[in-house]
């Protein structure tokens, strides 16, 4: 019985969480170009309770907008670790998936989820604002069903992630 109520509390919490997702305002790559249209009057993501926020402490979503340079990766990891649980990561664009057009570049990492756990990817270069919003909707569903557990995976497999990070950052 007691376990049931705990479950219920969790599901209510998830329901509230998915209604208010704050995205950290960090343009890591050129994908940041499609975010202003998404945020502003044409597509207006505030309809769904999504809003850009300024610092890592305040935010829930870390949106990796495009390719990640090794130099940026270091900052992204810091930002990710500064964020408070529960936190979610969305990989935006093909470059986060497999390097995209920068497959042969010496500066760009090829797989985001080796360094920080990604809950969701949006494919394409660049994904249109509609795709971004549909990804947010999908993330809401994942949160609602409790499947967006990237931050738990990060804690559980900390050694794996740290090892990968060390390899690339030196």
């Amino acid at each position, binding site marked *: 019985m007691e376990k049931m109520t705990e479950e219920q509390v969790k599901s209510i919490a998830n329901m509230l969480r998915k209604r208010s997702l704050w995205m950290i305002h960090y343009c890591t790559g050129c994908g940041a*170009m499609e975010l202003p249209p998404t945020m502003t009057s044409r597509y207006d993501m505030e309809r769904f309770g999504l809003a850009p926020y300024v610092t890592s402490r305040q935010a829930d979503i870390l949106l990796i907008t495009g390719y990640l*340079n090794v130099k*940026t990766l270091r*900052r992204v990891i810091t930002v990710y670790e500064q964020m408070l649980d529960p936190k979610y990561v969305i990989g935006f664009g093909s470059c986060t998936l497999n390097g995209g057009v920068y497959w042969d*570049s010496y500066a760009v990492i090829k797989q985001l989820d080796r360094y920080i756990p990604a809950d969701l990817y949006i494919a394409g270069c660049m994904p249109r604002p509609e795709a971004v919003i549909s990804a947010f909707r999908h993330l809401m569903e994942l949160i609602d069903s409790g499947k967006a557990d990237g931050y738990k995976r990060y804690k559980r497999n900390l050694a794996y992630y740290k090892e990968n990070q060390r390899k690339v950052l030196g």
Partner: protein
Amino acid sequence: MSKSYELFIGPNHPGIPGNFSLKIELEGDTVISAKGDPGYLHRAFEKAMEGRYYIQNLALIPRICVPEPDINEAAYSMAVEDLMGVEIPERAKYIRTIVLELARAANYTFWMGGFAGTLGLYTLAQWSFGDRDYALDLFAEICGARVYHMYIWPGGVRRDLPPGWEDKLLGYVKYMKDRLIDYDNIFFKNVMFKYRTKGIAVVTKEQAIEWGATGPILKAAGVAQDVRKDDPYAAYEYLDFEIPTLTDGDSWSRAMIRRWELENSLNIIEQAIKKMPKKGPVWEKMPNPLKWYVPEGETYAKVESARGEHGFYMVSDGTGKPYRVAVRGASHTHMFTIAEKVLIGQRLADVSHILVSLDVCPPEIDR
């Protein structure tokens, strides 16, 4: 005990235009030194281009400057055409002009929102980002993509304009001209805007020339230098337009110059549509794209971007891949030679709007 302290603006800070870091040293509220730290957007374009065919590079170059990708395509194509000795058809020239001006208008609309945002007026930001989207819709119609078009390519443009597109474009121009009145009322005539930007971050005429400024910074200081006039490319030599100049060289002048350039772009689009030959080829027949063996040589091709002179220095060794491509982005000079000097003595509250008024675009710096 030292009186000064250090503050990082960026990379994760809304006051910085993109992924870039600025280390400033402050004494009280006054900046005593500013150092830019680039490299967060370094993707090694110049290296990657050496390993790809000319046609493949076309997919890479728009990503050098995100807010206004078309200038890259135009400069790159011009460099290749220059080396191959290709003259592009008349209609293609006009289409290029229209596309470049549309991209410039979209970029200035975007810039306007960003600038108003740094001053704390979010209403204009919301409006202008929304209005910029109509330009992106027009792009989506001619090439299928909103941001990276890859529409201009060596020999002309990729395909002809879809039927009825000119009318839609004229509709957009008319709409933007109407909206400009709203923008003026809320922002450019706003007393607070004048109060915040008049006399801030002055770059005088002598300094602008000495530091190698281009584009709006130079025009705001009173020098009418514009690649479109001085070394006309595409169809600019057939068109009639003026280069706006102001004399103060402060943040306000730069903003007003950009606002007039936006109007200028809309006028140029109207003119170009009127003068454009209605029929004709849009692409000079070129060999099979995988066999573009560009003759050996070096060349420098430049266009006027929204920020200033944007150029490609291309070296070919006669094979299918470029031997070396060096990109000149206006932001490189504007950030490190101008902003770092201009920021000294300014107030912390002004730092972010000065950066935006100099229009520092980090992807251009890092490449």
